[in-house]
C-alpha cells in the first residue's frame, strides 16, 4: 500500500464514522427514546408524546434542542476533568460497538464498517469499556447517590459480562469463527443458531439476552439506576448535553446488543424468505422491543402520591423513595420521566430549595 492508499482509507474511515455516529444519534437515541416513550405509554394506557410533530414524532428532536441550551452545571466538589471525560468515553464505547455490526447486504457487498477477525471478542471488549466510563462518571460527581449508582452499575455489568461471553462462546463454537460476517454465513449453511442443537441454541440465546439486558442496565436489571432510592444512579449530577451523551452511549449499546442477538441467533440478513433488509430490520426491531421494552413500563413505574398544592418538583421527588403503597395508582412516572425530573429539579434548584437553615 502506498501513502495515497493509506490516506484514502483514513478518509473513508472518517466518512464512515460520521455516518455511523449520525445514525446512532438519530435512529437509536432519538427514535429509540421516542419509541420507548410511545410504546410504554400504550402499554400503560397513556398517549405518550403527541404534541410536537405528527404523533409526537419530533418530540425527541425538540428535547435535544432544549438540552443543547441547558447550562452545564459542574458540582463544586466534583473532579472536573473526569466529570467531563466520562460521558464522552461512554458515548465513544457505544459507537465503537458498531464497527463490527453488519447492516445488511448491497449487491455482493456486506454493509459493515470492518469485518474484524475477532469481531465478537472485540464486541465484548467494547462492552467492558463502558463500565469504566460509568464508574468514572459516578465517582467524579462526588455525590453519594452517583457514586453508589456507579459502583452498583459497575459490579452488575462486571457480573453479567461472563454470561454474555458464554452466550457469544456458544455461537463461536458452532460457527467456528469469531467474525460477525462469518457467523451469519455459517447460519446460511446450517439453520439459525437459535434452533441449532436444540435446546442449547435456545439456552444460549436466553443467556445472551438476559446478560445483555443486565449489561445495559435495563429493567428488570435496573437496580443501579434505582431512581426511587438513588435518584438516577451514576448520572444524578449530569445536566444538559452531558446527560444526553450518557443516554446516547446507553442506547447505542442497547441497540448494538439487539443487533448482535439478531446476527448471532436469528441468521442476520441471510433469511431466504424475505428480502435481506426487511428481515434484518424486522428481527432487529423484535429484539430491540424485547430488550428495551417488554416488562419495562410496568415494572419500571414508581408510585408517587399526587403532588400537594404548592409543592415543588423536588418535594415530589423526595416523597418518591418512601416506597409505601401509592395513594393514587394513576400517577405513575416511568423511569426516563423521572430522570428528566431530576434534571428539571437540578436546574430549578436554587429557587426550589426554599428557606435554608441559617441562610
Amino acid at each position, binding site marked *: 500500500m502506498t*501513502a495515497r492508499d493509506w490516506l484514502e482509507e483514513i478518509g473513508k474511515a472518517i466518512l464512515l464514522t460520521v455516518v455511523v455516529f449520525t445514525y446512532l444519534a438519530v435512529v437509536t437515541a432519538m427514535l429509540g427514546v421516542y419509541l420507548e416513550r410511545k410504546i410504554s405509554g400504550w402499554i400503560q394506557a397513556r398517549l405518550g408524546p403527541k404534541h410536537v410533530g405528527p404523533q409526537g414524532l419530533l418530540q425527541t428532536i425538540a428535547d435535544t434542542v432544549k438540552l443543547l441550551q441547558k447550562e452545564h452545571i459542574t458540582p463544586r466538589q466534583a473532579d472536573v476533568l473526569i466529570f467531563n471525560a466520562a460521558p464522552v468515553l461512554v458515548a465513544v464505547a457505544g459507537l465503537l460497538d458498531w464497527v463490527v455490526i453488519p447492516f445488511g447486504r448491497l449487491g455482493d457487498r456486506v454493509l459493515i464498517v470492518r469485518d474484524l477477525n475477532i469481531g465478537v471478542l472485540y464486541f465484548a471488549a467494547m462492552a467492558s469499556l463502558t463500565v469504566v466510563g460509568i464508574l468514572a462518571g459516578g465517582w*467524579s460527581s462526588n455525590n453519594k447517590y452517583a457514586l453508589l449508582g456507579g*459502583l452498583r452499575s*459497575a459490579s452488575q455489568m462486571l457480573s453479567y459480562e461472563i454470561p454474555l461471553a458464554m452466550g457469544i462462546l456458544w455461537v463461536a463454537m458452532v460457527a467456528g469463527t469469531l467474525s460477525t460476517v462469518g457467523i451469519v454465513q455459517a447460519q446460511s449453511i446450517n439453520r439459525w443458531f437459535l434452533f441449532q442443537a436444540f435446546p442449547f441454541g435456545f439456552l444460549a440465546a436466553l443467556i445472551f439476552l438476559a446478560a445483555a439486558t443486565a449489561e445495559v442496565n435495563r429493567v428488570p436489571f435496573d437496580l443501579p439506576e434505582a431512581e426511587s432510592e438513588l435518584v438516577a444512579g451514576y448520572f444524578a449530577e449530569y445536566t444538559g448535553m452531558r446527560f444526553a451523551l450518557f443516554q446516547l452511549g446507553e442506547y447505542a449499546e442497547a441497540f448494538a446488543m439487539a443487533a448482535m442477538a439478531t446476527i448471532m441467533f436469528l441468521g442476520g440478513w441471510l433469511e431466504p424468505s424475505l428480502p435481506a433488509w426487511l428481515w434484518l430490520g424486522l428481527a432487529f426491531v423484535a429484539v430491540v422491543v424485547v430488550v428495551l421494552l417488554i416488562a419495562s413500563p410496568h415494572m419500571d413505574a414508581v408510585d408517587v402520591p399526587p403532588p400537594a398544592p404548592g409543592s415543588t418538583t423536588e418535594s415530589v421527588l423526595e416523597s418518591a423513595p418512601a416506597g409505601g403503597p401509592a395513594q393514587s395508582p394513576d400517577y405513575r412516572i416511568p423511569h426516563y420521566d423521572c430522570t428528566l425530573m431530576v434534571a428539571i429539579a437540578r436546574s430549578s434548584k436554587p429557587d426550589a430549595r426554599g428557606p435554608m437553615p441559617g441562610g
Partner: protein
Amino acid sequence: MPEARCPGGELGAFIILSLVTLIPAVVVVTSGNIVRSALSLIPTFLGVTGLYILLHAEFVAGIQILIYAGAITVLILFVIMLTQGGSGVRIRQINEQVPLGAMAAVWLGFLILLVVFRTPWQIDATSVPQYNVSSVGTAFLTDYMLIFEVTSLVLLVSLIGAIIIARREE
C-alpha cells in the same frame, strides 16, 4: 498474505502510538490524584493495543482491551475506593528516595538498552507471523497442553488467595 509495506506510515503510527502510551503513563506516576492515575492507565493500555496491532497480533490486542482496559482498570478503581480515608485524598508520588530511585532507573534503562543493542534481531519484512485465533487455539490444545492445564491451576490459586486475603480484611 502478499502485502506491500509502507514503512513511513508504520513508523508514523508507531510514534503516535508510543506517545499515546507514554504520556498518560507519565501522568500515572506523577498525578497527585490516585483515581486520575488509575484512569490514565486506559489510554496507556489502548496505546499498547495499537502496538500489538502493528505486530498483527489481533487476538492479543482484543485481550488487551478486554482484560486490561476493561477489567483491570475497574479492579484498580475498586481497590482505590477501598483505601482508608477514601479516594479523594491527595497523594505524593515522590519522597526523599528520589536520588536512589533515579539511580536505579538509570541503571535499569542502561541494562535494557544493552540487551536491545546486543541482541541479533532477525529483521525480515517478508515473514509476518500469522497469529490468528485458531492457531492460538490449536497450539493450546496440542503442543502446549500441559501448560494450558497448569494455567487453570494458577487461576484457581489466585482466586482462592484473593478470597482469603479479602476475608481477612473484612
